[in-house]
């Protein structure tokens, strides 16, 4: 979609989402930005080995994966110092207190600000645990 080079180009990003259509969209959006997508996977069991592969630059994690939550994956990433952002439909409510500071992308995604949001979440000054909530754009 974008013609200029993105700061995300060449990054390996893990995508975890149990909704196939959403995973597909995120994969496409990241691929457009020149990212190498790891996954998408739909469960914690599938995501844990991928969270530990070499050269992983970041991750986008859907909080609710059917019957389970994605937090074990987030813990692994946090320990490894790999930045990640949660993707959830619940505005601020869906994230456990221990990850309350992690960046959150809201569903449905703002696809026109997707790059900006992912850059802020994964390449910004955030380290996992720091407070930052990416607000959706104001309606105009």
């Amino acid at each position, binding site marked *: 979609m974008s013609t200029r080079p993105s700061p995300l180009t060449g990054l390996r990003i893990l995508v975890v989402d149990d*909704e196939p259509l959403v995973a*597909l969209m995120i994969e496409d959006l990241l691929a457009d930005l020149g990212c190498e997508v790891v996954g998408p996977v739909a469960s914690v069991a599938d995501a844990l080995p991928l969270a530990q592969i070499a050269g992983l630059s970041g991750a986008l994690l859907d909080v609710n994966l059917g019957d389970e939550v994605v937090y074990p994956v987030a813990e692994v990433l946090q320990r490894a110092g790999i930045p990640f952002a949660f993707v959830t439909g619940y505005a601020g409510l869906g994230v456990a207190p221990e990850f309350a500071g992690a960046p959150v992308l809201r569903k449905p995604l703002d*696809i026109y600000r997707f790059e900006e949001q992912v850059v802020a979440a994964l390449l910004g000054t955030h380290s996992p645990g720091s407070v930052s909530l990416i607000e959706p754009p104001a309606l105009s």
Partner: protein
Amino acid sequence: MKPLRRVAQVLETEGMLPRGRYGRTSRAALALTLVAASAVTTALLPAWVDGAIYAVLLSGVTFVALLCGPGVGLIAVGLAALFCGLGPVPALAGASPWAVALFVVLGLIDVAAITFLLRSNARTRAAVVRAEELVEHLQVSEARFRGLLEGAPDAIIIADAAGGIVLLNAEAERLFGYDRAELLGQNIGMLMPERFRLRHAGRIERYLESPATRRMGDGNDMFGRRKDGSEFPIETNLSPLASHGEMLVTAVVRDLSARKEIHERQSLLVRELNHRVKNALASVQSIVVQTLRTASSPEAFSAAFTARIAALSQSHDVLTRNDWSGALVEDIVREQINPYGATDQAFEIRGPRVTLGPNRSVTLGMVIGELATNAAKFGALSNGGALAVDWDVESDVAGRRLRLTWREQSLAPVSPPLRTGFGSRLIHRSVAAGLRGTAELDYRPTGLVATLAFPLLAGES
């Protein structure tokens, strides 16, 4: 006939006559018999029994007064005196007028004594009757109270100002798991979790200083403690009860476990619904974005987008019919191809009964919907060909797998538009991510053959 009735009444109350069974005639006959018996006895007395005649007549007067009342008793005294004065009996010949006068005085004293006796007896009897009525009334009242207490659906516990349990009902026994004897006299604090007992101490006295019917805890969560130590949520209403100059407090305790459960279940459902709505919106967004990428024109976008939204909606319809518990594979397939005329003979849908979970039902619905749209646009359904969908369950060491085959039989050579583009990606990726299986799309000259294979989860059968 008042005197005769009285005889019968006295005999009745003394138990000598069955109550209320004898009419006036029988009563009169009885009284006459008594008077006659007395007179006959007197007449039969031999002459040598000097003066004894007065004693016999006096006892006759006593009986008549006793049975017929003071009025008739006085008449009997007069008749007896006349009898003595006339002297029809040999023993009375030449009776002294002083003796007759003495007899009359003794007779009057006798009647007076009997009158006093009868009155006092009547009063005692009336008191006994009133007491019996009162006891009966109390028994009825007590039975009603017990029925109300024991039949109450809530636990009712009455305690004194110090918290000592005075009374409790069957529901209180059941709710807290104690026998009545284990609780009576004990402090009501033993029915609370320990952490509340200290705070509760002295509360009853304070409550009784300004008693009013009110809810305990002022809306705070309250818990009861069973004999086994387990706790459960309760609601308690207090009311004061004055008894024998002492103030007691009645606590009506209701178990809130069921209500809490319903509340929690409702919250869960709302969260679940919210999750599904958000998922549906995110899916719609994905469909928009992806359809837009591959659409060649606004018209093409509109057609493809509408078909995909319809597929999503139809998947939801199937689930809604089953309260979102899951859906049969056959229902999922039929729902998606019905819009294209699934009742036609050209369709063959066959497979065992297999139920999928709700999310997986939606995913399979979207995949089948994509295949159906494609077939209607470019495949067998665009040229009057045939379609067969069949599935079966295979078991191996890894578990059970469902293998579904979509087989089109085209009447004309078909182009393979699914080979590239969102449609084919959606199918592959949905089966991979949503069903953890694989999809193969095989374009044969005779038409598309799609094979979906995915494992069945626990509970899917």
